């Protein structure tokens, strides 16, 4: 064990001040210290993506990011995408198109999809498949996840057009 360090970061819009060990992983701090249990641990080797969160506007696997690397950063987890009364289009689309089964990959998958659609608001099926290739799902075979994301993209684009 080494001396603890003072970590300041913004998580889901809220300023957090924490004492952490330099070796603590971001997923651990999110889950154990901030009680944000949406992101999950599936592999601890960056393969499965169940722990995906946004760090300064990029998707990261929080199981292999040190909490210290989030010093001063903006972090968004699935809990930050919506409120129970006002779900994100992606969350609704995943339900509508049966894009989840056991739900374990879902928070990471939706968080990744959320970022993907900001990077590419109008993706092709191929681009969606490539864009979520860092997130594994064992239940759905991806077909309905892809469908959910494409449907959400279409709905978000339609809403944007209507607003313009």
């Amino acid at each position: 064990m080494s001396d603890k360090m003072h970590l300041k970061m913004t998580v889901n819009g809220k300023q957090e001040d924490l004492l952490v060990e330099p070796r603590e992983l971001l997923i651990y701090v999110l889950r154990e210290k901030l009680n944000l249990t949406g992101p999950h641990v599936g592999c601890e080797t960056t393969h499965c993506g169940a722990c995906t969160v946004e760090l300064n506007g990029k998707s990261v696997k929080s199981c292999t990011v040190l909490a210290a690397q989030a010093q001063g950063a903006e972090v968004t987890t699935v809990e930050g995408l919506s409120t129970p009364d006002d779900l994100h289009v992606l969350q609704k689309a995943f339900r509508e198109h049966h894009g989840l089964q056991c739900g374990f990959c879902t928070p990471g998958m939706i968080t990744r999809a959320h970022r993907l659609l900001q990077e590419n608001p109008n993706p092709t099926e191929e681009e969606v498949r490539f864009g979520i290739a860092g997130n594994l799902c064992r239940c759905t075979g991806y077909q309905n996840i892809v469908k959910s994301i494409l449907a959400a993209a279409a709905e978000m684009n339609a809403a944007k057009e209507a607003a313009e």
Partner: protein
Amino acid sequence: MNDLTPTREERTAKLKGLGTSRKRVEDVRFTQGKGNYVDDVKLPGMLHGDFVRSPYAHARVKSINIDAAMALPGVIAVLTAKDLEPLSLHWMPTLAGDKQMVLADGKVLFQGQEVAFVVAEDRYIAADAVELVEVDYEELPVITDPFKALEPDATVLREDLEPGADGAHGPRKHHNHIFLWEEGDAEATNQAIDSAEVVAEEMVYYHRTHPCPLETCGSVASMDKVNGKLTLWGTFQAPHVVRTVASLLSGIEEHNIRVISPDIGGGFGNKVGVYPGYVCSIVASIVTGRPVKWIEDRMDNLMATAFARDYWMKGKISATKDGKITGLHCHVTADHGAFDACADPTKFPAGFFHICTGSYDIPVAYVGVDGVYTNKAPGGVAYRCSFRVTEAAYFIERMIEVLAIELNMDAAELRRINFIRKDQFPYQSALGWEYDSGDYHTAWDKALAAVGYDDLRKEQAAQVEAFKRGETRKLLGIGLTHFTEIVGAGPVKNCDILGMGMFDSCEIRIHPTGSAIARLGTISQGQGHATTFAQILASEIGIPADSITIEEGDTDTAPYGLGTYGSRSTPVAGAATAMAGRKIRAKAQMIAAYLLEVHDDDVEWDVDRFQVKGAPERFKTMAEIAYASYNQAIPGVEPGLEAVSYYDPPNMTYPFGAYICVMEIDADTGEHDIRQFYALDDCGTRINPMVIEGQVHGGLTEALAIAMGQEIAYDELGNVKTGTLMDFFLPTAWETPNYTTDHTETPSPHHPIGAKGVGESPNVGGVPAFSNAVNDAFRAFGLRHTHMPHDHWRIWKTANDLGLHG
């Protein structure tokens, strides 16, 4: 009635009952990150446990020094076998009648075996302490090949077993032998094969793999010493059985144990067994008086908990020269690893492998399975299949292909002329099963027509010619499969787990205002029980599915059941749900008749109400009846509206399907491209088509993984070569194709609603479809059979061995 009166159709639609693609109720919390999985359970003062694991596959443990670990601040305890021995918990019984070390008792028998259990204030300290435990090992010779394990002078692996003594399933013929299990008529089968016009022989290996759900296994044990109650949260596919086992092992009375399966992040068979981690978390909580959490990491999961398959299946199939099958012989050498911890019904050490005559009318057959110990992890779980059914389906579907080659016959036609005909059901198989129902020819013709089979064969032939002319390096494979499953274990008369009959249960309470809660003995791991069981009930009792809460997994509240695996939830608990619903309806009928002031026999059920026969305008809805049951004194009828059903199925169910995979293979790189995958499933009555389709997509993707690259591989020293997701293949969205799903519907004649179960069909049927496609691509070049997994290297090697690289 007037225009505002809802029609019968409108009332039916409002229920969202059977056949509706009802959106899942689970998704609302899962999509918001508000699931509650075992690692999300957090209790005051909770400690964390982690294992010291063996780096060796076979070694004596000469000494364990825990001093340095105990000296680390934050370490509370380090448990070894010596600490568990006074409690008789250093070994535990397995589901297969063997026993397994909880912590290494003098030796280790596989890499990753649990040696010591460290308990610390947090995970980081526990991990540090694991490194500080000093274990002195003396390496012993390692056996990873089950055939070598049976050589006369092979090293004795299980020194704890008395030499020459019988095992749980009869005589052991060698010190590394576990059992010989046989079914069928060996003599008649040999006779049929010896006198046959055509015989095909092949060794078909179904390699060792792993269910690898995205959530690993784990538990949280909390022993409350004040009131003597143990609460255990965990990744349990069978929570009630876990409670019984925990009671038998610990001596704590069963009423003082509460087992809770919270949300489970995928199971696929991985979470059926009882693992040392569960036991150690319980003991550690008893010892420390604090809650103890154990969560395995991915490497632990792949190395130590619950492999699947590892069957060497030597087959002989005989036929007349025009293709009518006359006999099937199969001998399996089954690698069970260091302990026989297979999760099978007690009387079936090889599960339901003897469904291996498949969809075919085979007059005589014999199966013999030799279980063997090796220095590999224990397990042998049903990875998304019903107890060795996927091995059986793979075996017969490969043998059919090999026989087609031997006969120089089209493999689709060979299947067609041997299918059990519709008029033969119920069908008695040569290996002792009674197939409840089926219509294979209809399904097969529909599948072949859907993919344009004849044109595909023409295209394939043209591509072979083009390949030979040097115009392409790609080959086309057409992978055919017609599988028959056997699911829904099972009749209590012959199916039990540790003596517990494999019934299942449902308890329903109708609330005064007409909504309801139903609790079941099963537990969803992604199957969507909260959605679909409510649909069964909605159709039975006329209360909308949206007004029915489904609860599972808490042994203090749910009725006893054997859990969810082997596609048994719908066939068994689904049946219990329907039967409990019918009990509710029977009582409701009496109440309705009383309220309507007519005789019980003068009312009839209609969607959501009882109405007076011939006067449908006089009715009482189920909601009105429920209210009356709580607020009226009805002569001869107890107050309230509740029912419970424990359902013992009279037979298993036999879902089937026709799958066709069209795959292009690059002979030079070994890469494959799945051009089309068509999956027709017949699971009887369809409860929720959306959920069924989702299950098929997922199961096919698991099959894709298994057939095309996923394996638990060992080197000759017993090192696990595929212990992380870097090496263990889980397909991404990029590698996974889109699937076309289709169905026929042949209801089960003995199931209350005719449903058969579907979750495992796509794994069972998918693996042979993918593998047959690879094999078929090379058929024109003389290939009979090549083993899975068909990764790029192995496909390249096949092409190379066939001389296709010039």
